[in-house]
């Protein structure tokens, strides 16, 4: 009977492709994030540390292609400084941009050349192209991280769980070559990315102890910002709009009552 139901289900599902259950993944470890809730904001210090983790750990393989340097200094961004409403003038942003090497060109002789980054540049891709990225990673493509926390269900908790979820495979389980065991991974429990974090992997400039848990939280804070950089602006505007609409609703209800006062309906 079960076989029949399953085969029927397969027939009934689309010709377009196999449909199978999404990720055998373990349940995410839920954290209390600073950005949650209707008035949640990003923890700027954590996001700044998270940028350091991205830069020193993740950026070796993962691009962040939708983020430009000036974005880092926008309102609501990790390096926003009210003294520099135009992030392109912010010396911190300029200094960060300068640390990266940008491939530009072609020049007059048709060659590409390297130059230090400027605020208008986007964060550079660690690989020349997708195939190069795959070739350097045994065929696995390190995904772009700009939207990672929105491209997975419950993304921030997912990413935190994944980063802190590496463990030894259960007894009797054989890992494919080059794979690591991670029960939180959405694509099964074998992941091509090796455990990226270890105690003291980065040295925080603000003196925070760089435990695996701390680094995971910080980089998630940063990547959540990267995926939704206008969140603070959006929520702030949302409050203004909701309060306005509420008052307008009261006024209109008064108007409605006044108009209908003498009318039975």
């Amino acid at each position, binding site marked *: 009977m079960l076989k029949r139901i399953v085969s029927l289900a397969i027939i009934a599902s689309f010709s377009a492709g196999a449909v199978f259950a999404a990720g055998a993944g373990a349940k995410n470890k839920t954290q209390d994030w600073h950005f949650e809730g209707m008035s949640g904001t990003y923890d700027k210090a954590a996001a700044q540390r998270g940028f350091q983790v991205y830069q020193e750990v993740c950026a070796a393989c993962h691009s962040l292609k939708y983020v430009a340097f*000036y974005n880092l200094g926008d309102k609501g961004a990790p390096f926003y400084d009210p003294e520099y409403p135009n992030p*392109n003038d912010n010396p911190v942003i300029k200094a960060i941009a300068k640390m990266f090497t940008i491939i530009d060109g072609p020049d007059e002789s048709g060659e590409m050349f390297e130059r230090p980054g400027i*605020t*208008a540049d986007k964060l550079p891709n660690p690989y020349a192209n997708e195939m190069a990225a795959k070739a350097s990673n045994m065929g696995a493509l390190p995904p772009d991280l700009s939207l990672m926390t929105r491209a997975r269900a419950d993304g921030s908790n997912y990413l935190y769980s994944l980063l802190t979820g590496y463990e030894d495979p259960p007894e009797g389980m054989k890992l494919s070559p080059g794979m690591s065991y991670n029960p939180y991974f959405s694509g099964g429990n074998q992941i091509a990315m090796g455990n990226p974090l270890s105690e003291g992997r980065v040295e925080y400039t603000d003196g925070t102890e760089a435990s695996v848990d701390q680094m995971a939280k910080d980089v998630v804070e940063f990547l959540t910002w990267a995926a939704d950089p206008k969140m603070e602006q959006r929520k702030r505007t949302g409050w203004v709009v909701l309060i*306005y609409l509420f008052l307008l609703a009261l006024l*209109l209800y008064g108007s409605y009552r*006044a*108009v209908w006062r003498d009318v039975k309906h």
Partner: protein
Amino acid sequence: MSTPVESDEPTRRDFIHIASGTAVVAGAGFLAWPLIDQMNPSADTLSLATIEFDVSSLEEGAQVVAKWRGKPVFIRYRTAAEIEEARSLDVSVLKDKQTDSERLVPGPDGKLKPQYLVAVGICTHLGCVPLFDPKDTKGGEYGGWFCPCHGSHYDNSGRIRKGPAPTNLVVPPYWYMSDTVIQIGKEASV
């Protein structure tokens, strides 16, 4: 339609309608701004509103064309002879009377840097890009630029000397961030 119901006490009744009507109009007004503002230059465009340029990379007598806000900007390292030529000119012969030093900005020390001339490379006549070639006539009769479209000649200070162009080449807003780096797109903040 004045009042919807019999106007036995018009002021109090009308007030609520006026208040809600005003609130609707005000809300619509605020909503209009995002709809208009979205057509203004976006953040990525604005990030290139100013560019920085290191003039120390220039060679004497040469010019580099920088791209700024979709326009070419001529940055020229003038020789001592060229500077002297530009300075000694009697301004009264010009169509658009400007001295050479009026077309320069001071460095961080407050002194002009006459060797560096910065001008938007667009002919003020009808918008062509003038040619540069100080060693040959291609650059015009006055050692500056020559616009091939309608034959405007500019001198090495970018001033119009002959031809249909009405004004001198435009000097863009720029300032010396340091001794050798200029930022185009912004005046020095005083």
